[in-house]
């Protein structure tokens, strides 16, 4: 009893949990995924993203909650009854079968007639641009080609859901960019629903329609790439999205979504991302590319340069504040170690998070 792709409207995770002994790998994750969406599960290693994927695939039983495909509960089903396509991190190609046989395996298991298998395998091989390689064994292919076989094998059965577990992490940088575009192209061509696990925020931002940020087995934020990139809800999400500078201060004034924070003798303002009250502790989060040196008298973070690195168009600088906080910033000119700098950023690009965090 496999799932009919046409009847599927949404996949719902309802308070899904998974414990390994006393360790909660996943805690009450609830999420609704619509047909045709490209969802990225993003988070550092150990955040529960691969666990979520394995629970959806049925490779791991849940210890709490349920998974629903429209009105049908699917978490008691075995993986072979779910009919989802999955692309594994190490590809998991069958080493003793030719590329053709690998791609056709799912169709064969479904009892598809031989002639139709041949036709659809050829189509899938063409879609992932593997023509002419189909008689080879996986061991004779390069990493990128193996990845294409893995993708073709997962999509040829036209699954309602394609699950991808860090599919690009074993490829080199150039191939990774190529395959990233390829994956998005294939997703758009098929109109499939894709759940994509990655720890690479850039990958998630460029691929996904929506990103789910996980941390310690809990969903921290769900949003479009634009949302997450410029409006992270939590300090840790901000940090993960590239707001690498975290500076602690006291709120001087707050209101209308903005806040001014005193750090040392200077005051910096930014956009408040949660409840921020005057007099309370708060954190400023600033991306390195938004933090620049300003004239010595202007308001800004006072620090001492540790080092600078040349990055082509500008210099990336590293500096340390008097309290030991490390800062990274961009500068047009080279600065020498030990030099005092004042660093400031456009208030629209500074985020303020209240609380001790």
């Amino acid at each position: 009893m496999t799932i009919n792709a046409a009847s599927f409207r949404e996949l719902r995770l309802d308070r899904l949990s998974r414990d390994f002994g006393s360790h909660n790998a996943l805690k009450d994750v609830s999420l609704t995924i619509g047909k045709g969406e490209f969802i990225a599960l993003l988070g550092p290693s150990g955040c529960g993203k691969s666990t979520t994927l394995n629970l959806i695939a049925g490779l791991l039983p849940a210890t709490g909650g349920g998974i629903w495909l429209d009105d049908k509960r699917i978490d008691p089903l075995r993986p072979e009854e779910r009919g989802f396509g999955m692309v594994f991190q190490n590809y998991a190609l069958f080493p003793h079968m030719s590329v053709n046989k690998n791609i056709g395996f799912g169709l064969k298991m479904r009892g598809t007639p031989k002639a139709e298998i041949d036709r659809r395998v050829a189509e899938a091989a063409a879609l992932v641009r593997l023509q002419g390689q189909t008689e080879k064994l996986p061991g004779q292919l390069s990493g990128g080609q193996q990845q294409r076989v893995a993708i073709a094998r997962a999509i040829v059965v036209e699954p309602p859901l394609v699950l991808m577990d860090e599919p690009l992490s074993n490829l080199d940088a150039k191939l990774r960019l190529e395959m990233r575009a390829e994956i998005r192209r294939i997703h758009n061509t098929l109109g499939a629903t894709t759940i994509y696990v990655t720890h690479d925020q850039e990958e998630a931002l460029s691929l996904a329609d929506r990103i789910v940020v996980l941390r310690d087995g809990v969903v921290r934020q769900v949003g479009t790439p634009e949302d997450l990139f410029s409006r992270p809800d939590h300090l840790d999400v901000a940090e993960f999205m590239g707001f690498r500078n975290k500076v602690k201060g006291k709120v001087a004034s707050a209101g209308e979504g903005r806040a001014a924070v005193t750090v040392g003798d200077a005051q910096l303002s930014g956009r408040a991302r949660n409840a921020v009250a005057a007099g309370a502790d708060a954190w400023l989060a600033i991306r390195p590319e938004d933090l620049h040196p300003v004239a010595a008298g202007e308001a800004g973070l006072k620090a001492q340069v540790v080092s600078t690195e040349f990055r082509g168009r500008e210099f990336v600088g590293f500096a340390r504040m008097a309290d030991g906080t490390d800062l990274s910033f961009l500068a047009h000119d080279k600065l020498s170690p030990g030099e005092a700098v004042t660093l400031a950023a456009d208030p629209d690009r500074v985020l303020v998070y209240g609380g001790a965090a």
Partner: protein
Amino acid sequence: MSADVSIPLKQRLAARGLDGLTLLVVPAVLFLLALFIYPFLYGLFLSFEPKQGGVLANYQRFFSDSFLYGTIGTTLWLALPVTVATLALAIPIAFRVRLMRNQRLLTTILVIPITLGTVLVAEGLLNYLGPQGWFNRTLMTLGIISSPVKLLHNYWGVMLSLVITGFPFTFLLTLSYLSGIDPALENAGATLGAGPWERFKHILFPLLLPGLAITFCLSFVQAFSVFPSAVLLGAPAGPTRVISIAAYQAAFEEYDYSMASAVAMIMALVQLAIVVAVLAARGLLYRGPAGGGKG
């Protein structure tokens, strides 16, 4: 430009894998020469120097006397079923055990028969399977049989003891080959719609087969050279007169070492023929890594 640019001999040897470390092989080579190659060649030549008759007289005698050449069939009739039976037992158990967490404990229990030795197992079976042993008494008490089943001093006694002593070895080899198969392959099969039987048939078994061929050869050779259990549990004069008994009788009852050597050579040839046949068949199989790729 007259500088000497030739590479020193030592370095050239090292590039071919010959360096000081290579010398560590010497003791093993000497050992092998003294205890295997020399006795083997000695026996080979001895077999061509019969007590009477021409060079091939021993072989002619072996193949013209059904009491002698019949031992080949008798031994094969024991060794082949035993090997197949141990494999048939080992495969399903290995499939179950590989998923268990307390693998080590179970493996230890299963390995005990190997440490006991064939003689102890044979002695144990003599008691257990005898007409007054637990096995027959239990079956009779349960009313399954009315008179004791004869399991000793015939084919079945030897067969059973060979399966018991051969199983741990076969099992351990099978388990290690099975553990070498990337579990992601099975998961991939499952997500593609293959049920447990189809995953076994299309993925695990084909990948396991080359290893099973090796396991088969090693188990077969062990079973083929059966001697103690054939004497203790079998009928050494009749149905379990295996080839090693023929060699033993030639050497220590007839004191014809030449004939005994000839029997040993024939024994080696039969084993070799089976092993070569199995390995040749294995050559037709896929033998690459059993992993899922570059992972």
